[in-house]
């Protein structure tokens, strides 16, 4: 039984032996987990942005600029009420619980103004996740700001990390257990910690992550860069 044909024949009949029905307990357990599992948001990344012709890029940049200036003027016209962080004492503010309150956020979550999606071009490749020059997306969980991960244009995901804000502008990332949905982690293993500084540009369109240290080198080369805000529509 050692030539190719006979091995394939034997292997086929051998593979036929075995279970063909999933145990109910496994399916039920999965459905139970799904009940409490949120879906990832699909924001339809405009990957074509990297291949837009120059006139279209200029027009898009101009439009974004107009929107940003308009948005900034709108924000200032509200007298800074949209500022993020602990509100200072204000004698003129009438307490209106829940009308403008943001959702309850754990103190170690990232500030809500950087939640969302940021894009950049990879300058190297990570096997099984993305290739050099490919557009990649950094997603900061928009439900609670306590996780971030990388997404790719073909639906891949990886480097999922739990987020703990250490101080304003400094964050600790921890690789979760493999039983958690990590995606592709390359060389990162459970519990590995990375400390990063983050800063946002004045106009809010760029987010820079700088590694202070990270036990996982692949996470550094993936995350430590300047990211561009992806518009939500």
């Amino acid at each position, binding site marked *: 039984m050692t030539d190719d044909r006979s*091995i394939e024949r034997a292997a086929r009949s051998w593979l036929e032996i075995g279970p063909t029905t999933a145990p109910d307990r*496994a399916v039920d357990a999965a459905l139970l987990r799904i009940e409490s599992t949120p879906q990832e948001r699909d924001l339809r990344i405009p990957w074509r942005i990297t291949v837009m012709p120059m006139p279209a890029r200029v027009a898009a940049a101009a439009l974004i600029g107009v929107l940003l200036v308009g948005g900034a003027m709108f924000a200032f016209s509200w007298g800074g009420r949209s500022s993020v962080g602990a509100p200072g004492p204000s004698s003129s503010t009438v307490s209106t619980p829940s009308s403008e309150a943001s959702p309850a956020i754990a103190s170690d979550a990232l500030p809500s103004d950087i939640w969302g999606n940021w894009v950049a071009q990879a300058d190297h490749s990570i096997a099984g996740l993305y290739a050099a020059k490919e557009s990649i997306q950094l997603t900061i969980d928009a439900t609670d700001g306590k996780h971030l991960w990388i997404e790719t244009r073909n639906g891949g995901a990886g480097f999922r990390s739990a987020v703990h804000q250490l101080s304003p502008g400094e964050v600790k990332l921890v690789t979760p257990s493999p039983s958690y949905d990590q995606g592709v982690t390359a060389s990162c293993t459970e519990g590995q910690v990375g400390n990063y500084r983050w800063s946002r540009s004045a106009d809010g369109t760029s987010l820079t992550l700088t590694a202070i240290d990270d036990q996982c080198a692949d996470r550094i080369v993936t995350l430590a860069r300047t990211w561009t805000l992806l518009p939500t529509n």
Partner: protein
Amino acid sequence: MDRDLVERARRGDREAFAVLVHQVSDSLYAVAHRILRDSGLAEDALQNALVLAWRRIPHLREPDRFEAWIHRILVHACYDESQRARQWTANVRVLPFDGPSTPDGTAVIADRDELERAFRRLPIDQRAVFVLHHYVGLPLVEIAEMLEIPAGTARSRLHYATRGLQDALSADAELAVSGGRLA
């Protein structure tokens, strides 16, 4: 596969996704079991694949390719389970089947045992391609597309899997012969 169910699941309909789960879980489990050769690991891989599929289904661009897509997730879940299992069994050696095969009906069982041992020695990515090709019946081009690997890579994994089985079975046969001589 019902496209409408997939579309509803993409929009967050858990009931629609549960129907899909019941439609695909037998097939997924059968594949996982054959790749991993272990019921517990296969159950874990199935669970993790289904949960991950639920999380990621909003990103699924082509609902008609749901089955291929979820099989890809399953195969990656199998890789993860295999890696985890390896951490626990790193020191466990696969022992040779003791006792020569006989020309009667027990020879069939011996062949199965040999195949089992030989298959377990293959790298998990080769096992996956082997199972998808010889059990699910997918052509290599589809396997490559499903796993998002070049067709040449799928072909070489299948080739090395077959060669690996061949070598392992030959080695077992020689061991049995030399064992018989020593005895």
